[in-house]
């Protein structure tokens, strides 16, 4: 996937955003700030729904529908494995590009609002991004200062979203080496390349780049203790020593605190 140049045409890449943008144009900067909070929710709607809202909204001119760009990140696992839960552990909040089917087209907004190096006050946008990634303090450590659809290399050159691995490799050399060798991160699909494709998930499909450490999650229930076995004194066992707790009751359906099921790599194709 190549990087789209930040042209005016690219501004209208996706219908939900376009709907938001029409209002931005009419209501001005303050209105936009308020709306940006609502954007993620709207982004989840389908194209058609967004268009009809826009139609009903006003007599503003209807802009042509622009198809979403194809996914820049591979899908986790095989489509045929519907019986398996292939959700990656990435837990993100707020402007969650992966979660809400965003287009990764940051330039939609940043065309108007150039990013700055220093944030010394809480802003309305990206408020929920909590940057806890080593000693990174600045957005522009990773994001490209002028093209927000891209990441930035050592020399200021652009790294395409699809090549995000190269960005991470700037610091995580050994991990990159392992990833390339196929032993870090998820490989899915076919181990035998002669029989099918292997997909390698990219760094940000599992790690939230702003908070790369995996969030703790609720484990799925333990092996239920067979009821026919002799029960030990469970309380004593559960409390003390080594935790040889013996589970006799069925456990509630444990759901991991991650994203809902299904491929989360956004972008319906």
């Amino acid at each position, binding site marked *: 996937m190549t990087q789209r140049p930040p042209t005016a045409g690219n501004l209208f890449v996706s219908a939900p955003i376009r709907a938001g943008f029409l209002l931005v144009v009419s209501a001005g900067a303050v209105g936009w700030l308020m709306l940006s909070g609502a954007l993620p929710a709207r982004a989840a709607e389908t194209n058609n729904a967004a268009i009809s809202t826009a139609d009903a909204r006003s007599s503003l001119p209807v802009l042509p529908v622009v198809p979403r760009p194809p996914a820049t990140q591979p899908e986790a*696992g*095989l489509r045929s*494995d519907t*019986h*398996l*839960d*292939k*959700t*990656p*552990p990435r837990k993100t909040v707020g402007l969650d590009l992966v979660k809400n089917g965003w287009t990764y087209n940051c330039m939609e907004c940043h065309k108007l609002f150039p990013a700055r190096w220093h944030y010394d006050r809480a802003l309305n946008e990206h408020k929920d991004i909590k940057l806890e990634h080593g000693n990174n303090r600045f957005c522009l450590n990773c994001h490209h200062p002028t093209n927000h659809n891209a990441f930035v290399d050592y020399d200021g050159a652009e790294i395409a979203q699809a090549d995000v691995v190269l960005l991470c490799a700037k610091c995580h050399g050994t991990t990159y080496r*392992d990833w390339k*060798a*196929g*032993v*870090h*991160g*998820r*490989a*899915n*699909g*076919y*181990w*035998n390349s*002669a*029989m*099918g494709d292997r997909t390698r*998930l990219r760094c940000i499909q*599992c790690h939230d780049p702003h908070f790369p450490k*995996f969030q*703790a*999650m*609720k*484990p*799925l*229930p*333990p*092996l*239920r*203790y*067979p009821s*026919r076995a002799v029960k030990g004194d469970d309380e004593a066992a559960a409390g003390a*020593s*080594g*935790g*040889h*707790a*013996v*589970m006799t009751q*069925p*456990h*509630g*359906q*444990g759901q*991991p*605190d*991650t994203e809902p099921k299904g491929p989360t790599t956004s972008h319906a194709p």
Partner: protein
Amino acid sequence: MSHEPENSVSPKTIEQVYQPMNRRTFLKGTAAAMVGMAGLVAALKPLLALERGEVTLHDLLQKHYRELSPADLERIRKSLEAKCEAEYGVRPTIKDLKPLDGVGFGYALNLTRCIGCRKCAHACLAENNQSREDANDIEMSYIRVLEMNKGAINLETSNAYYDPEKVPQKDKYYMPVQCHQCAQSPCTKVCPVQATWQEKDGLVVVDYNWCIGCRYCMAACPYDARRFNFKKPTIKPEAINREQSYLSNRIRPKGVVEKCTFCLQRTRAGKYPACLEVCPTGARVFGNLLDPNSEINYILNNKRVYILKEDVGTQPRFYYFFDK
């Protein structure tokens, strides 16, 4: 004391001691025999509950998997499919995938990455059709995830029943254990009928139609990797994975041992095993040991590898490794 005279010659013969049969004793004997027969029939009455087709002449005469002709195997696979449809309401496709040439499977698990979420253990169920009443019942999963105390690799203080709000816990790490497909497999060695054996690609499989259910292999396994069907498997039709294979995930009969086959039905078709597919942290690495460029060989060459119970001499094809 030597011979008691009594022991050498008895004054009376048996025929003198016990009177010959007359009408009275005959009737008494007949009555006793009737009572005995009635008791026998009553004792065997539970057998009436046997399902039709549970023990058939065909099954009894079936040969060992490795001695079956292709035509026989074809017929048996079809009849198993029909049986599954009749009993569970779902018609599966039961394939017979043979080992691939030049392939020896190896599996590695990154102990640094595993967070103990048990997704592998549950995916194992979804893939391999183990007996379970509901989604929570994973007793028969081939994977046990052990919660270990940091600072040691001590199985004795491990806990397989952990269920905290969140994993990973701060002072713990997690070690999933499943069949190690040992090159020196104690389980295949002890099986009295060769119902379990190692295939060319290293997978240890079970012929469920040959296993007599003595569970000696379970006693022999140092990794607690084998499961026994103490009852006829219970599984809801919607939970059944229809992609099945004769030596792996077809629904087992009761009274036989089953085990992890590295998802033979997937891996011999080139796919990754189910436990790897779902591992959220990518802690699992699977590949061909005979391919020098495979990921698994990269790990063996570049990582610090730990073999569980190496002292037992099983030579597993399953490795644990550490990162960072």
